[in-house]
């Protein structure tokens, strides 16, 4: 359970990882997060810069978490694309970072997602590979086999592979600079032709179009899947009602408290207006 209120943590490192950066903080007050959960992040200084933005905290899935000494080390993967991500990408060791979390619904084990599922297929796209890195570590710790498929647009828009050490990963890139030239969902489609479709559960995080392709592929093949979605989010704990995702049976869910991990069949579409922005 997340402690109530936000707390100030110290940034311990910030390193490049391909075209992204991985920054870490030491959280002395919170519990170890589950894979798929997220934190709301805001730098202690320079938040609300010259243009008055960033103003709100930013939601980030945790990419790795490890108990270390007097706290929990939390790793986050960031790509500088807007005022919030640019400020976070520029954090330096010793800087303060306000966090609240861990928040939201995490990934569920394969046997909880689909009766009889014994393995996991992790499908990540772009900056969305982050939560899958922690999920893979947790699955391996539990002795559950996990195949990893990661896709990127091009070299500048790729990174985070450091988070997936010593494991077999299949890569795709739209420009062909690494792995299969094309989409990561091409790799998934091939994989789902085999026996694995009957014994595995799919876990995906990435841009909306990728997630929608995964959702449709899995629905067509009858494979259970969990998707880690993103939506504009002001608070992260159900207060603002901003992160509405259309449900397959009508109405909306709040992604922060009813997600960010959702079952494929729960949602009408992963192409939610405003998401991935």
């Amino acid at each position, binding site marked *: 359970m997340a402690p109530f209120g936000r707390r100030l943590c110290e940034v311990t490192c910030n390193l490049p990882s391909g075209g992204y950066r991985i920054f870490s903080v030491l959280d002395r007050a919170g519990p170890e997060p589950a894979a798929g959960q997220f934190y709301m992040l805001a730098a202690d200084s320079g938040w609300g810069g010259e243009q008055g*933005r960033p103003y709100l905290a930013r939601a980030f899935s945790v990419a790795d978490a490890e108990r270390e000494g007097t706290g929990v080390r939390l790793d986050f993967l960031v790509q500088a694309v807007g005022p919030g991500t640019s400020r976070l990408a520029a954090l330096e060791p010793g800087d303060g970072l306000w966090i*609240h979390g861990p928040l939201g619904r995490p990934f569920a084990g394969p046997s909880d997602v689909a009766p009889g599922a014994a393995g996991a297929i992790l499908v990540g796209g772009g900056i969305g590979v982050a939560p899958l890195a922690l999920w893979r570590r947790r699955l391996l710790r539990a002795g559950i086999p996990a195949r990893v498929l990661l896709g990127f647009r091009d070299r500048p828009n790729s990174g985070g592979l450091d988070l997936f050490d010593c494991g077999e990963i299949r890569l795709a890139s739209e420009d062909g600079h690494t792995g299969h030239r094309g989409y990561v969902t091409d790799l998934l489609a091939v994989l789902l032709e085999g026996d694995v479709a009957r014994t595995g559960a799919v876990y995906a995080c990435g841009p909306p179009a990728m997630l929608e392709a995964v959702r449709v592929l899995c629905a067509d093949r009858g494979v259970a899947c969990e998707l880690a979605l993103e939506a504009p*989010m002001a*608070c*992260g704990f*159900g207060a603002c009602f901003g992160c509405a995702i259309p449900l397959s049976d009508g109405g909306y869910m709040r992604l922060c408290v009813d997600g960010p991990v959702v079952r494929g069949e729960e949602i009408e579409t992963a192409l939610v207006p405003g*998401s991935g922005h």
Partner: protein
Amino acid sequence: METELCGIHLRHPVINGSGTFDAIAARRAFGDALLDEFPFSAFVSKTITPEPRSGNPPPRLWETPSGLINSIGLPNKGLDGFLEHDLPQLAELPVPLIVSVMGTSHDEFARLVDGVAGREEVAALELNVSCPNVESGLIVGESPEEARSLLQVLRPLTEKPLLVKLTPNIANPVPVAVAAEGAGADAVSLINTLRAVAFDPDSGDRWLGGGTGGLSGPAVRAVALAQVHAVAEAVSIPVVAMGGISSGRDAAEMLRAGARIVAVGTESFRDPAAGSRIAVELGGELARISG
């Protein structure tokens, strides 16, 4: 720091703005620590309507310089769903409960007040009048006559305090506040969000699924301060002030402008425990000013 609002004892002057804190969802996220460290001295519910509403299509949010535009569309379970599912959980909060209601006609408002005011868990009601009366086509909160006639219908229905939440989207909120007071309102609260719009930088279309939205956060604080000051000068009932309050100093300014109570909204998004922090800071500010 202890105070009172319409006879309701409050342990400090900081409450929440309606629709900016879901205590039930927050308890799911933070557990019973929320109850032990509850940040507000009273809790104002999200607005309930007679029938369930699912809210506006996404996107619902847009960040501005020092502010936030929202277009949420009042999602709620409706009166019956609120009474059955939400009220028992809100009754477990360690503070008095104020229920916000909104109807689109006198009859709808009367049904809401009837359904809510009789419940002993409810200390007071706030009337959200930022929507049109379908019978007249006028927005209740923009018309002194509409506000007066609504209060004349609702006032006899309950002895519990009725707060009227004023809209800032009007040249001068004072006549509506005066009309509400004259027709029996026990307090007024202001400001609601300022009507605002954002455009998608890529498509050029309006960004929010609901078209227009409401601006909140520090960006609106000076406007709120002016309206609170003007209204507090004109009425003798208590004023609940809100609009961009992010610190004890902001809260102290609202009190100096004439408010009895302050409400925190958007700042709670940035820090769930902001209400407690602002109450502590406010105590320091008041000591500094009087010292």
